[in-house]
């Protein structure tokens, strides 16, 4: 990240901030989508996060840490969007189809659906830890630092989320097996 751009933006330069948005936006959309599992909610969270970041940019003491700081702001925006979406659950739209798995890979498609169901059952805080660990590839101390939570909390959330995912996958597998064995 260009430190000069951050410092210019801290002095109120909107063009510099837009350059920062262009440089970091794709990753922010990726993070928000993976936490919220909804494109519209994710875009709302990203927009909220950047406006918050702009408003509070002068409080950033280390310009070199702009992106970690931004990700923390983004995560809080995701939490807020998730809370709003729980209040207005009827407005949540269906998840669009993802494109990362080959359509002819039947097992992968099954896994993808199961994984999506499993992740949706997690709390939004647990999802955030999974995203920062598996999507951004951060270590647990780095996840804790990025999310501004104690290491023990990060570890606990990752542990619980992984266990819940495993349990969810196994429950789905059992359910699929039952339906296959059931007479037509």
């Amino acid at each position, binding site marked *: 990240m260009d430190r000069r751009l951050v410092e210019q933006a801290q002095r109120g330069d909107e063009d510099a*901030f837009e350059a920062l948005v262009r440089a970091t936006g794709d990753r*922010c959309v990726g993070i928000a989508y993976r936490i919220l599992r909804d494109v519209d909610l994710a875009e709302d969270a990203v927009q909220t996060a*950047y406006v918050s970041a702009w408003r509070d940019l*002068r409080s950033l003491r280390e310009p070199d840490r702009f992106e970690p700081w931004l990700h923390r702001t983004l995560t*809080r925006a995701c939490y807020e969007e998730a809370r709003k979406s729980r209040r207005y659950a009827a407005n949540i739209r269906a998840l669009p189809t993802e494109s*990362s798995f080959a359509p002819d890979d039947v097992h992968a498609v099954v896994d993808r659906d199961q994984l999506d169901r499993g992740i949706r059952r997690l709390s939004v805080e647990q999802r955030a830890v999974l995203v920062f660990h598996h999507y951004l590839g951060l270590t647990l*101390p780095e996840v804790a630092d990025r999310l501004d939570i104690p290491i023990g909390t990060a570890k606990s959330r990752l542990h619980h989320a992984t266990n819940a*995912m495993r349990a969810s996958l196994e429950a789905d597998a059992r359910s699929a097996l039952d339906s296959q064995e059931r007479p037509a």
Partner: protein
Amino acid sequence: MTRERDVDELIHTFMQGGPEELSERLLTGIRNDVHGTKQRALWRPWRTPAMPRPMIIFAALGALLVAIAAMAVVGTGGRAVPSAVPVSPSPSASSSSSASGPTVITYPLADGEAWLLVEAAHGATLIKPNAEGSHTILEDLDVAVATPRWSNDGRQVTFEGNNASGSQVWIANADGTGARQLTETPDGCPNETCTEGINPDWSPDGRSIAYVAPTHDRDSFTKMSLNVVDVATGTSRELYSTTDASLARPSWSPDGTKIVLEILHYKGKPEDTSITSSVIAVVDVTGADHTPRELTDDSLLAGYPFWHPTSDLIVFRSNRFDGDALLDPAKPSDLYTIKPDGSGLTKVTDNGVGGPIVRGPSWTPDGRILFGKLANLGADEFLRIINADGTGEASATGNLWTKGEGKWRPGT
């Protein structure tokens, strides 16, 4: 099918799929919103929002006089008395405002010299009151350092060391040298059944350390225990254990006969669901019955208790803050004190719903409360200090931003 594949690998692969592109439409929306939004001025902890300009000038002049007086004390070889007088930011303070900044202290720590011990992202940070200097210790270990606490003589520290094999209790000299792991699990975490060691607290006589021991296998917790380890031998004994709650943050009474701790209740098993409530409770260490006696009810969401260094008084905070959210956003975050028999519940702060958030209170040697404070959700955290009756709140470390709970060096 899925059982045969590693769930971590599945999640990792799954996370790589999905949108990750900032659309021009979204960029336009951000641009328009930013154009109509004014940037906030810096928040200064020594300045309250309601403080009028003449008072700010008066406060700045007062701080300047305090600084001059402090320099005079140092110049005569005297030692400045720890003070919670608010100070304005100075060039020297800002130069030491980073935990990784230049070293400004010498070792070993002088007897009677006041230091604050604060958890940091990579190690633990020693900070002088009023931010005259800071230095990170324990940063070269192969474990991440969490929840550090002083020994009662202020010469050693205990902390939990985290790595991929789990967490265990460690001890070290106060300057970070001589670090060694004190507890261990025979089978190794996280693949087999193992017992970790977290949240250590040194006993007043220095011979023992109380800690929380979560025991779990690969899939789930089997129990949470309150243990005490003998520092000389490394032998642990279990005081109390439970299978339907989580334990946290033990703190010894000054006579070493009791321990106060936090008990977290879950809706279901701890590994399946999130926390629903928390209480603080006292465990009798010396008697035959170590069952915790709860001091608070669920409604207060009490946690992070810390016993007064010389008297029967416990400070705690309401409404757990996990670093990114309050346990109940519809309730305030406040400091309280209570006697170990459950009487004398006293509210120290009055923050209100949506107001400031307090974290990790502890006592200073002279009986004031040191705590972390965020002006609001998402704001920077500062160490503050307040009298037990709620008066005299001030910054504990000048304008130095900190992250994590602070502990004042005992005896200083």
